[in-house]
C-alpha cells in the first residue's frame, strides 16, 4: 500500500467530480497500476475504486482484474456499470463502485476496557470521526463482557487484556471462547511482538498498540479484522463442506471396491484382483486423508470436545498394538510392549489418546526396515506418564526436524506415495497432546532409529489438584463437578478471590464420593459429565440426607438440554447458569445461600404433646414444642419459625384458629404440616403444605416430609432474595 500525493491524477479527478477524500485505500496491483478506494460523497454506502492506469490503455484488462480483486476481497459483487474514464496525461482513471464493506457492517462494538480515560478517548475519537451509526458498548471486566455477549448482538470485540478479572492471553482466550464467531481486536499498551503473535494464535484478528494508532487506522483495523474473520469462517466452512462432499463419491467407490474385494460379486481372476486391490487400498487412503483433514481443521478451530476421564495407558496401548497387528505384519515388523506392569493412569480422552498411540505406532511401523522391531514403553514418573515408541528406521533428516509436526510434512515427497501416509498424522498427534496438557517430542535412538515420546499428566497428579489446598481454612467450601480441568482451574481461581474454596470432581462418581467425604456449602454441577448426566448426579446427591437441601447450581454448555426437565422436577436446583458462566451472578447466588445457611438451623414450632415427634424433628431443626394455643402465641413472639407442625386435635382450643396467627415478624405466612388424627378438612388451606394422619404415618416419614418442605421453602427464599 502506498499513499498518493495530492497532485496525483486520481486526486485531481476526485476533486473535479466533487468528491471528498475520506477513506483512501490503495493497492499496488502492478507497478503501473494503482487501485484507489474512496467513499462516494453522494452515497455513503458506496465504496468506489479508482484505478489509475499509467502509460497506455492496454492495461484496461488489468484494471478490471484489480476491480474484481477489490470487490471480491470486500465480499461484494462489483458493478461494472459505473466505470468512467478520465483522460489524463499520466494515463487514465477507471472508476468502479462497490457497496461499502466498512463501518456500516460494524454496528455494535463491544469495548472491554477498565481504564476510564481510554474509554473516553476512544468514544471521542469515534464521535469526532463521524462514526455515528456505530454503537460502542463499554464493559470494564471480562465477566460483564461474557454476560453482555450472551444477550446482545455484537459485531466486533475490542479488548484491552489487562482487566481486573482476566489478564493477558487468558483474557484473549476467554473473550474468544465467549464469542468464537466474532472478530476480536486487541488494543493494549504492551508493545511486545511475541505476545502479539500468541494473541493472534489464540484467536485475535489484530493486535494494536495504544498511542501508536490514530482513529482512521483503528477504524480500518476493525473493518479488516471483520473481513479476516469472515474469510476465516468461509475457509472453515469450505473445508468442512468439501470434506463431506468428498465422502459421498468415496462411499460409492470404496463400497463398490470393498464388495468386489470381498468376492461379493464372485471370485476374481488374479490380475484383476491385483489391480482392484490397488484401487481399494488407495480409496481407503483417500478416506483416511479426508478424515484427517477434517480432524485437524476441527482441532485447530477448537471444535473438538474432549471427554476427559481416567485412562489406563497400558490397556490402551495393548489395544492400539492389537489394532495395528495386521498393518505391522504387512511391513514384516514386530511390535513389543515394554515397561512395568504397574498401573499408569492418565487423565485423557481415551478415543483421542488411542488416536495418538495409533498414529505414532503406524508411523514407527511404516518407517521400520523389514524384520525389525518397534518397542513401545510406558514409564510412570512423579507427575507425568511417559510413553515412548522406538523404531529402527533411518532416523529423521536434520533439516526436516523443525517441520515434523507441521501439516502435510513428509521428509521425502515420495514417502507419501510409498508409505501411504497423509502427512497429517504427527500434526494431529501434536494437536491432541497439546489439548491433553501433555508434551510430545522425539530423539535419536542409540544405535539408529528414532524414539518418539508423549508425556501426559498422571491421574494421581490431576486428582491431587482436586482438593483446594491453597484456600483459607475458614473459606466456605464448594464442590465443582466439571470434567474440563482448565475450566475448573479458572473458576477456582476466580472463586478464591471472593473467598471460596473449590474442590473438583471430574465425574459423577467422583462427586458422590467427595460429597460423602466432606460437607460442602454448595455444589456446582456441569450437566455433561463423562460418566453420566448432571441431572442423575443431582438425584443421587439429593438422596444423601446431608445434601437434602444444600444449594445446587447447574452449569451447562448447552442452554437447551434438560433445562425444562430440571425445572419441573423436585430437585430444588437453585439456578441454571449457561457457559460462559456469569461470574457475578454465580457469586451473588453463592454468597446469599452460604450466608443463609450459616446463619442458623431451621426453626420448627411444634404444637403437640408427643415427645417422640419432637425428638425426631430436633434431628433436623431447632424445635420449640408447645401444648396449647396460648403457649404457641407466646412462642411466636420469641422469634421466626420456618415451619409449624400441628396436631389439630389438641385439647385446649382448636388449633385451626391458630392458622391465621402463624406469621413471622415480617408478616410472611409460616407453612404448616398437619400431623393429626383428623386434619383432612384442612387440606385445602393454602398455608397447609401437607396433612398426615397419625394412624397411617410413621415418625420417619413425617420427618422426611418436614425436611422436604424446609428444603423447598429455603430454595424459594433464595430465589426471592436473589
Amino acid at each position, binding site marked *: 500500500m502506498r499513499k498518493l500525493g495530492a497532485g496525483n491524477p486520481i486526486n485531481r479527478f476526485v476533486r473535479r467530480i466533487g468528491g471528498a477524500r475520506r477513506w483512501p485505500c490503495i493497492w499496488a496491483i502492478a507497478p503501473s497500476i494503482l487501485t484507489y478506494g474512496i467513499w462516494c460523497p453522494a452515497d455513503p454506502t458506496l465504496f468506489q475504486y479508482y484505478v489509475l492506469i499509467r502509460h497506455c490503455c492496454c492495461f484496461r484488462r488489468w484494471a478490471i482484474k484489480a476491480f474484481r480483486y477489490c470487490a471480491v476481497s470486500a465480499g461484494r459483487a462489483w458493478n461494472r456499470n459505473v466505470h468512467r474514464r478520465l483522460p489524463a496525461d499520466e494515463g487514465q482513471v477507471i472508476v468502479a463502485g462497490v457497496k461499502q464493506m466498512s463501518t456500516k457492517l460494524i454496528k455494535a462494538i463491544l469495548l472491554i476496557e477498565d481504564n476510564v480515560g481510554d474509554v473516553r478517548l476512544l468514544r471521542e475519537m469515534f464521535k469526532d470521526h463521524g462514526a455515528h451509526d456505530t454503537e460502542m458498548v463499554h464493559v470494564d471486566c471480562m465477566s460483564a463482557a461474557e454476560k453482555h455477549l450472551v444477550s446482545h448482538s455484537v459485531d466486533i470485540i475490542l479488548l484491552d487484556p489487562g482487566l481486573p478479572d482476566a489478564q493477558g492471553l487468558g483474557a484473549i482466550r476467554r473473550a474468544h471462547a465467549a464469542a468464537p464467531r466474532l472478530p476480536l481486536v486487541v488494543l493494549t499498551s504492551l508493545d511486545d511482538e511475541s505476545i502479539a503473535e500468541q494473541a493472534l494464535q489464540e484467536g485475535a484478528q489484530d493486535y494494536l498498540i495504544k498511542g501508536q494508532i490514530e482513529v482512521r487506522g483503528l477504524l480500518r483495523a476493525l473493518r479488516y479484522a471483520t473481513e479476516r474473520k469472515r474469510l476465516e469462517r468461509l475457509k472453515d466452512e469450505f473445508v468442512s463442506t468439501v470434506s*463431506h462432499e468428498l*465422502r*459421498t*463419491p*468415496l*462411499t*460409492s467407490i*470404496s*463400497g*463398490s471396491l*470393498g*464388495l468386489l474385494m*470381498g468376492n*461379493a*460379486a464372485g471370485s476374481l481372476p488374479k490380475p484383476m484382483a491385483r489391480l482392484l486391490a490397488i484401487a481399494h487400498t488407495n480409496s481407503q487412503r483417500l*478416506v483416511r486423508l479426508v478424515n484427517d483433514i*477434517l480432524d485437524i481443521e*476441527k482441532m485447530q478451530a477448537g*471444535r*473438538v*470436545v474432549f471427554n476427559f476421564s481416567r485412562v489406563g495407558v497400558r490397556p490402551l496401548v495393548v489395544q492400539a498394538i492389537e489394532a495395528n497387528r495386521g498393518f505391522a505384519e504387512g511391513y514384516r515388523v514386530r511390535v513389543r510392549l515394554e515397561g512395568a506392569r504397574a498401573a499408569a493412569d492418565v487423565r485423557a480422552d481415551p478415543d483421542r489418546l488411542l488416536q495418538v498411540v495409533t498414529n505414532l505406532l503406524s508411523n514407527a511401523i511404516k518407517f521400520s526396515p523389514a524384520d525389525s522391531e518397534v518397542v513401545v514403553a510406558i514409564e510412570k514418573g512423579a507427575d507425568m506418564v511417559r510413553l515412548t515408541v522406538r523404531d529402527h528406521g533411518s532416523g529423521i533428516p536434520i533439516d526436516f526436524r523443525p517441520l515434523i509436526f507441521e501439516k502435510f510434512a513428509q521428509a521425502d515427497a515420495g514417502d507419501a506415495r510409498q508409505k501411504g501416509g497423509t502427512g497429517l498424522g504427527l500434526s494431529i498427534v501434536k494437536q491432541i497432546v497439546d489439548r491433553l496438557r501433555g508434551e510430545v517430542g522425539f530423539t535419536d535412538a542409540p544405535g539408529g532409529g528414532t524414539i518418539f515420546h508423549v508425556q501426559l499428566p498422571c491421574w494421581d497428579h490431576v486428582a491431587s489438584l482436586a482438593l483446594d489446598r491453597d484456600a483459607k481454612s475458614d473459606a466456605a467450601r464448594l464442590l465443582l463437578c466439571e470434567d474440563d480441568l482448565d475450566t475448573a482451574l479458572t473458576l477456582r481461581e476466580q472463586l478464591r478471590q471472593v473467598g471460596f474454596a473449590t474442590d473438583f470432581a471430574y465425574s459423577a462418581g467422583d462427586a458422590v464420593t467427595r460429597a460423602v467425604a466432606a460437607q460442602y456449602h454448595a455444589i456446582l454441577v456441569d450437566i455433561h459429565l463423562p460418566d453420566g448426566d448432571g441431572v442423575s448426579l443431582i438425584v443421587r446427591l439429593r438422596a444423601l440426607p446431608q445434601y437434602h437441601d444444600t444449594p445446587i447450581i447447574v452449569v451447562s454448555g448447552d442452554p437447551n*438440554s434438560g433445562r425444562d426437565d430440571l425445572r419441573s422436577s423436585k430437585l430444588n436446583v437453585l439456578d441454571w447458569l449457561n457457559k460462559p458462566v456469569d461470574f457475578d451472578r454465580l457469586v451473588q447466588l453463592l454468597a446469599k445461600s452460604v450466608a443463609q445457611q450459616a446463619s442458623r438451623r431451621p426453626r420448627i414450632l411444634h404444637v403437640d404433646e408427643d415427645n417422640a415427634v419432637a425428638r425426631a424433628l430436633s434431628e433436623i431443626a431447632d424445635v420449640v414444642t408447645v401444648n396449647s394455643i396460648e403457649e404457641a402465641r407466646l412462642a411466636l413472639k420469641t422469634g421466626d419459625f420456618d415451619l409449624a407442625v400441628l396436631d389439630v386435635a389438641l385439647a385446649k382450643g382448636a388449633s385451626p384458629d391458630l392458622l391465621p396467627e402463624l406469621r413471622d415478624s415480617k408478616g410472611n405466612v409460616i407453612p404448616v404440616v398437619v400431623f393429626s388424627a383428623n386434619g383432612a378438612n384442612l387440606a385445602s388451606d393454602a398455608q397447609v403444605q401437607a396433612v398426615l394422619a397419625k394412624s397411617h404415618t410413621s415418625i420417619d416419614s413425617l420427618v422426611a416430609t418436614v425436611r422436604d418442605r424446609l428444603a423447598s421453602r429455603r430454595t424459594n427464599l433464595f430465589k426471592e432474595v436473589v
Partner: protein
Amino acid sequence: MTDIRILLVDDEPDIREVVDVSLGLDPEFKMRACASGADALVTAAEWSPSIILLDVMMPLMDGPTTLANLRKNPRTAHIPVVFLTARTQTDEIEQYISLGAQGVLSKPFNPMTLAASVRDYLPASAARHAP
C-alpha cells in the same frame, strides 16, 4: 421366518446400489430404496419396514425433517431410524440421537460388515431370527 425389511433413503443412486448389494449379503434382508424424504414417508407407511436407513443431506426434505415427519405419523412413528451419513462429527451424532434416531452409521462404510452393523440396531422382535 419373516424377512427383515430395510428401507434405505438416499438421493445418490450409486450409494443406493452399493448399499443394496452390501445388505444383500445377508439372506434375511429385504431392501427397498427411496431417493427422497417424501418418497420415504409414503413407502414407510405402506411397507412398514423393520428399520429405516436415512441419509442426512438430501434436497427438498433432509434427513432430520424426514425423521420428524416419520415420527408424526402413527403408522411410522415406532420404526427405528438409523442415519447413514458422511456428517459424523461428535456434535452431529449427538444431534441425530437427540432427534430420536437409534444410531448413526458413517459413510464411507465397510460394505462387507454393513449388514451386521444394521442388525445391531434392529429391535429385538425383528432380530430374533439372527443366525
